[in-house]
């Protein structure tokens, strides 16, 4: 009985709406490729010649490749450690919920989800500076530690749906707790780890506030932070500024173009299961 024919009203409305999403991105690309003379003629038109010198200048002005390297290093290492450590803590908690210590620990971690970062923001700079951690290493540690609140909530829910039998069989065979976690549980967590990995990757890559307050050395700045710092130097050279913005947005857009189905699927799966 389902209507098999295409719903054209919805298709047209969705298409019109998507223009609103795409228009600012079209403007970004087109301005990044123009020069000021072309801008004066029309802001909206397609660029006539492709002014790739905007990109060359932006790369030089902002030391783009250095910032790109910092962002990649911070994001990749943070996500790997989040997946390995947060799932392990969640495993220990999920399998000992009857024990008071682990139960308290569970609520201790997840209650942090309600604490706004602003209450920690001022003192954490003091703590990290005292420990000489106001650098990339410190930033990565904070991302991994702060991930615990939300990730333990999600992982514990998922692990409790995994039957005990598999682990019992492994223990019979003489596997240690570590071995059981690593060989049996961690692989079973793959679907939810994908969701957590995607969300952590996006939030770490695009984070602005933590790098802003924490990183002291300009050589360790991330891509968003560099745009902020150079905002003044771009001045009214919008073509240079937009070339720089486009460069900063592009790496994630490329990842998205290839992994779009997987990224959206991962978030959808995570939303349905938890």
């Amino acid at each position, binding site marked *: *009985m*389902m*209507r098999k024919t*295409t*719903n054209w009203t*919805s*298709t047209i*409305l969705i298409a019109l*709406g*998507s223009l609103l*999403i*795409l228009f*600012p*991105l079209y*403007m*970004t690309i087109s301005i990044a490729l123009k020069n000021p003379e072309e801008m004066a003629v029309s*802001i909206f038109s397609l660029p006539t010649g492709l002014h790739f010198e905007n990109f060359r200048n932006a790369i030089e002005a902002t030391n783009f490749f250095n910032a790109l390297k910092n962002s990649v290093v911070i994001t990749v290492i943070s996500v790997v450690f989040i997946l390995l450590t*947060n799932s392990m*803590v969640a495993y220990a908690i999920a*399998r000992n919920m009857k024990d008071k210590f*682990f139960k308290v620990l569970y609520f*201790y*971690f997840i209650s*942090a989800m*309600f*604490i*706004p970062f*602003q*209450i*920690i*923001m*001022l003192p*954490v700079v003091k*703590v990290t500076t005292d420990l000489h951690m106001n650098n990339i290493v410190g930033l990565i*540690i904070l991302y991994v530690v702060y991930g*615990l609140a939300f990730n333990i909530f999600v992982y514990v829910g998922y692990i409790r749906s995994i039957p005990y039998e598999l682990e019992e069989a492994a223990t019979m065979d003489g596997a240690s*707790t570590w071995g059981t976690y690593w060989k049996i549980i961690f692989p079973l967590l793959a679907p939810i780890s994908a969701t957590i990995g995607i969300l952590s990757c*996006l939030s770490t*890559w*695009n984070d*602005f*506030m933590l790098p802003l*307050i924490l990183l002291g050395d300009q050589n360790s700045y991330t891509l*968003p932070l560099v*745009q*902020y710092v150079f905002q003044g130097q771009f001045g009214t050279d*919008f073509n240079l*500024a937009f070339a720089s*913005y486009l460069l*900063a*947005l592009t790496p*994630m*857009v490329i990842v*998205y173009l290839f992994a*779009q189905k997987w990224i*959206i699927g991962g*978030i*959808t799966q995570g*939303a*349905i299961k938890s």
Partner: protein
Amino acid sequence: MAKRRIAFYLMTIPALLLFFTFHTFPALQGIFYAFTNWDGFGESYDFVGFKNFVNLFKDENVINSYIFTFKYAIVVTILINVISLLIALGLNAKIKFKNFFRGVYFLPNILSVLIVGFIFNYLFSNVLTTWGAKMGSEFLSQNILGNADWAWIGIVIVAVWQGIAFNTILYLAGLQTIPKDLYEASNLDGAGKFREFISITFPLLASFFTINMVLAMKSGLMVFDQIVALTGGGPGRSTQSIALLIYTGGFQGGEFAYQSANAVIYFIVIIVISVLQLKFLQKREMDM
């Protein structure tokens, strides 16, 4: 068995220590400093009791930042939820190029909030004004970000443009959990589209509605990146959010203790609102 217990403790205690050092301890420090007059860099400070808290309630800047933040968060939460629900319904219908459009609508979610803010800043100041001038509208030919009464609308537009992406995907996930045969039954009964939405779709999306409302409200109350990129809190202090005030006052204004007190109040406000929202919305879920 003892060995197993030791392993479980070893798995959790390092995380507990790190979490305490970098999350709980700074939070306690923040609460501690809220009762002092420390400026953030000096050697000494004194205890001042509840003086900071009393002064907060008399401080016009603080009160204005709360009013602005609430107004902004409520409007953004409503708009994001209404629009993303409509988009999700559209994307869930039998449309052409479904995967392509789904990809387009999710795209803003992968972009840096700060950089999107910079891009829109330019669109508001140079592109929309050109358009406005061409159309001969005096109102549209001025930069709304430069107008103390209208700048907040500009920030709302950017937050909604970007925020609908994630909520749309969550609603879309919710729509996929609704069994198709429910609609077939209602089709036979001759229920209209609107009736179908009210009596089947929306009640079954209740838990997704709850989570989307709470998420949108929380990120609305914590708005920071958009404001840095679009207005810097101006014109004047008309778009200064609570988070921005704590940042600028605490790090640059020598108000470490005072803004710590502000953060404590802000923390209480967020807790109260989250709990109220959850209670109210979950009660509604039960009733439906």
